[in-house]
Every structure is written in structure tokens, then in C-alpha cells.
């Protein structure tokens, strides 16, 4: 899949830092053919992003525990490393060495396949997250649409693990998770569509480029405030975060579809949900908060300092600032999600479906239509 997509990197207007080009050129300088050089390059960004996703999860878990503790006037993890930063590692290690239990009457094959099907689409979705003009695995043309379609695979994994556990709580949790996931996918896709309409492209890089004309003022959040809120609510529902954590509502369903899982398979679910949270936060920052863009455009700053944008030093600084800004925005949103977790009570299933189908869906449709109308009336402000 990646072999086909990654080659389709279109010529971009603004140059930016192109690591791939310099890497393959260096390898070709050593006497390798361009194809072999490309083949050697391919796994590198994938491995890097996999590591980044895992590290992001570790950081998020630590933040979650620390911020939760602070919100409740506790201390939180304290002894594993300074300020407990190694606590997520200890958790992961514990899950890794735990016994892998498959219940006697469960369906062993589906039971094993379920967590994998939950995790793989989430990790695959990192393909399209840009950290800079050329700092992403592949600038796929269908970009954000790929993420939406990949995230629609997840419910199958949830249903599979819920069914295979041979446990009523698991089955109910899996069904709830799938129902919630497909209900909130629609307003999510519609609010993404409004953004796509303004940038005339599904590619995440184009979406960010379109927002970076005038720094913070040109971010999509000002042009799409309703879409931003809808997207954030739906993203929380897709990640099964509070107040939408019905699939694993412990008072009703023990732990939902995870009830029978232990050890590394449970860890896969855990990992999947946190990677999904970080990914959603990253995509909110890409779609609405200007992605890698600094609040003041770097080109202006370079101009004021009398530096050329193409100078190597400026390019390296731009790329670093881009990565920092993307991660910073994403983690601000993660912080907000954790704060929301301790603020809002869990909704009931009827309230959840009411909110999804009777409130968010009409609202996102209206948002889409208004965006279309505004685009026709003010083509300069809303993407011609």
C-alpha cells in the first residue's frame, strides 16, 4: 500500500525541508540505484512514526495520571523516575510479562484478532499526519478521507473482540462501541467536509497550507467555529473518552469489550485508545489550528530578521518549530480532553444517540451548507 502511495509526492510550491530527497540523493551518491535508495528510505519514516506514536502514548498516559491527580488534589505517580515519568513504562512492562489468558469457552482466533484490528487502523492513520511541509510519511491525495475510512474499520475489531469473549458484558460493550462509532462518524465526516471544501483538497498538507497565510488569524477555527466544536465532540466520542465512555462504563458493563482481556492483548486496546486520542488531537490541530504553523508566519519573521526562507539554517529552524507547534497544539487538546474527563458526567445511551443524530448531525449539515454559501459569496475568505 505504502509503496504505491508514497511515490506520489507532488511538486510543492514552497520548498521546506525535504529529508527524503537529501537522504536518497546521499544514498545514490554511494552508488545505489534510485529504486534501492527509495526502498531503504521507505521503512525509516514508518519506524520513526511508530516510535513517535508509542512515545506520544507514554507521555499522554503520564499526563493523564498527573493531571487527574492534580484535579483531585492528589500527587499521582511519584516513585517511578523523577515525578513518576517512568510509570507508563512500568505499566507497559507489567502488561507485557503478564499471563496471556484466553477464556476457555472463548473463540481463540477472533479473540486474538480483535485487538489487532482495533490497533492497526489507528497506527495506519498516522500516515497522513503532517509535522511539516515534507515531514509526513506520505502526502496521500485522499489524505483526511483515508483517516475517516480507516477509523471505520475499528468497530469491526470491537465487535469481533466483544463476540469472541463469550461474555454478555463484552458483547454489549462491543455493540455499544460500534453503534457509537458509526453514529458519530457522520457528523465528524461532515465537519471535515466543510474544511475540505474551503481548502479544495483532501490532502492534509494542502489543508494546513491553506491556513498559513496570516498566522493565527487565518486558522480554520475562526472560519469554522461550529465545525471545530462538532469535530472535537465527535473525536471524543470516537475515542470513547468521557463523557462518551459508555462502551466501557464500569458501573454497567464491567469493562465492556475489554472485560475478558489480560496482558498484552489488553495493552493493545489501551494503546489503541490512547494513540487514537493523540491522533484525534493532532488532526484537530491540523484541520482547525493551523497544523505546524507558528502563530506568526515564519516567513514574516525570517523577513524581519533579514534571512532568506531558503537558507539551510532557517529551514531547519522552521522544521523544528513546525514539529514543536504541532505537538504543542495536540497536547493542549489532550489536556482539554483530560480536563473534560473530570468535569463532565457520563451521558446515558439515549442522550448519546440524541446528541449524535438529533443535534450534531443537523448542525453539521447546516454548517456544511452555510460554508458552501459563504464560499460562493466570499471566495477570497473561504477558499475560491
Amino acid at each position: 500500500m505504502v509503496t504505491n502511495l508514497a511515490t506520489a509526492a507532488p511538486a510543492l510550491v514552497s520548498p521546506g525541508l525535504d529529508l527524503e530527497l537529501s537522504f536518497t540523493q546521499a544514498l545514490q551518491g554511494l552508488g545505489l540505484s534510485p529504486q534501492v535508495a527509495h526502498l531503504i528510505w521507505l521503512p525509516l519514516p514508518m519506524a520513526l512514526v511508530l516510535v513517535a506514536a508509542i512515545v506520544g502514548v507514554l507521555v499522554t498516559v503520564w499526563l493523564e495520571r498527573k493531571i487527574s491527580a492534580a484535579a483531585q488534589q492528589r500527587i499521582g505517580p511519584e516513585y517511578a523516575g523523577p515525578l513518576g515519568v517512568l510509570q507508563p513504562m512500568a505499566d507497559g512492562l507489567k502488561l507485557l510479562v503478564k499471563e496471556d489468558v484466553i477464556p476457555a469457552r472463548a473463540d481463540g482466533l477472533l479473540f486474538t484478532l480483535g485487538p489487532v484490528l482495533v490497533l492497526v487502523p489507528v497506527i495506519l492513520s498516522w500516515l497522513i499526519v503532517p509535522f511539516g511541509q515534507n515531514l509526513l510519511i506520505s502526502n496521500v491525495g485522499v489524505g483526511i478521507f483515508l483517516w475517516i475510512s480507516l477509523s471505520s474499520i475499528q468497530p469491526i475489531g470491537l465487535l469481533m473482540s466483544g463476540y469472541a469473549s463469550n461474555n454478555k458484558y463484552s458483547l454489549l460493550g462491543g455493540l455499544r462501541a460500534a453503534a457509537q462509532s458509526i453514529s458519530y462518524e457522520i457528523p465528524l465526516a461532515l465537519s471535515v467536509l466543510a474544511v475540505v471544501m474551503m481548502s479544495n483538497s483532501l490532502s492534509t498538507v494542502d489543508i494546513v497550507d491553506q491556513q498559513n497565510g496570516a498566522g493565527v488569524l487565518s486558522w480554520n477555527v475562526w472560519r469554522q467555529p461550529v465545525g471545530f466544536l462538532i469535530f472535537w465532540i465527535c473525536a471524543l466520542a470516537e475515542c470513547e473518552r468521557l463523557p462518551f465512555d459508555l462502551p466501557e462504563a464500569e458501573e454497567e458493563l464491567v469493562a465492556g469489550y475489554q472485560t475478558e482481556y489480560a496482558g498484552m492483548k489488553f495493552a493493545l486496546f489501551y494503546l489503541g485508545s490512547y494513540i487514537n486520542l493523540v491522533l484525534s488531537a493532532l488532526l484537530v490541530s491540523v484541520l482547525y489550528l493551523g497544523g505546524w504553523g507558528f502563530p506568526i508566519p515564519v516567513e514574516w519573521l525570517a523577513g524581519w530578521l533579514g534571512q532568506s526562507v531558503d537558507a539551510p539554517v532557517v529551514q531547519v529552524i522552521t522544521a523544528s518549530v513546525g514539529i514543536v507547534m504541532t505537538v504543542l497544539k495536540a497536547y493542549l487538546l489532550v489536556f482539554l480532553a483530560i480536563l473534560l474527563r473530570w468535569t463532565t458526567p457520563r451521558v446515558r445511551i439515549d442522550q448519546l444517540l440524541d446528541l449524535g443524530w438529533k443535534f450534531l448531525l443537523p448542525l453539521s449539515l447546516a454548517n456544511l451548507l452555510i460554508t458552501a454559501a459563504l464560499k460562493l459569496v466570499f471566495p477570497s475568505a473561504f477558499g475560491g
Partner: protein
Amino acid sequence: MTIANSTELICFVVLAAVVVLGSLGVVLLSNIVYSAFLLGGVFMAVAGLYLLLNASFVAAAQVLVYVGAVNVLILFAIMLVNKREDLKPVEGLQLRRLLSGGVCAGLLILLVRVVVSTPWAVPGPAAIGEGATERIGEHLFTDYLLPFELASVLLLMAMIGAIVLARRDVLEADVGTGDAVDQGLIEKPSTPLLVDQSTR
């Protein structure tokens, strides 16, 4: 043969094998849940074939619609059906199997004939790639507008049918069996459940 070509060939063989074996599994497995999950796998493999043809938008749409919506709904229907009934042996099963096998074989022969007799242009037209999204949109809103709208009407009909089947309370008799529907616990606007006793 370059690396890219051989990778493509390997991918094609694997995907084709998954499609064929998976479809056979969907039909032949006795466990209906396995069939449904395998169907999802077949849809994914078909999406992979689209991807090999450089039609990424169609592939993504295939995953979104068939795997994410159709297959999940099939699984939902299987897992929510609460009816426990003993299956009666069907009369003349052997004959029925032979007949349906004959029909399927006839269809296969017809398709093979078409494939063999059609003069395929090799290589086919160049893939549009990234521009496909716009082209599909243009076609959907110009020359394929009528089929597009008809499909949506069909979906609307399916939705109304689902509502009628699911909400038995609006009907006097069961749609399937014709028995009178027990409406004892369904609140109607004319006769509320909490009748005020003092006015009687």
C-alpha cells in the same frame, strides 16, 4: 522486471487469493459470524486491488462504505437477532444444491467467456491518480446524476422498511406472521399509562 513491478505482482496475487478464498469461506462456512467477518476481509482485499490500480479514492470509499458501514450493519443484525429457533431439515436439499451450483457455474462460464472474448487494450488507459476525486464528483453531478439520485431513493426505501420492521407498535398486526401485536406496554397519546384514577 523492476522492484516496483514485482512488488505489485506479489500484492496482486496475495490480494486475489484473499478475495477468492475469502468469498468461498463466506459461502461455505457454517458459522454465520465467521462468514460476516470474512466478508469484511474480502471487502478489504477488494479495496487493496483498487489501490493497486492507483484508484486510492475508490479504495478509501470502498473501505468506508463496505467495511465501515455495510459489514458493521450485517454484524449488528447478526448479533442483535435474538430469535432462537430450531432449523428444520430442508426437503430435497441435494437437488437444491445441485440447481444453485449449476446456476453459479453457468454464470462463471458466461463471465469467463466475456473475459476471454473481449479485446482488452493492454496496457489500459493511464490512471488519473490524484485527479480521480474531482472526476468522480463531476460525473456524479452531471451524466450520472439520475442513477445517483435513484440510489439515494432506494436507500430511503430501505430505511423506511427498516423503521416499519423495527417499530412494530405502529402496526396492528405483525408484518411477518400476521398475528395481532401485543401493545399492552406501549404508551399511546390517547390513553396514557398513568390514568388519573380520581376522574373515573
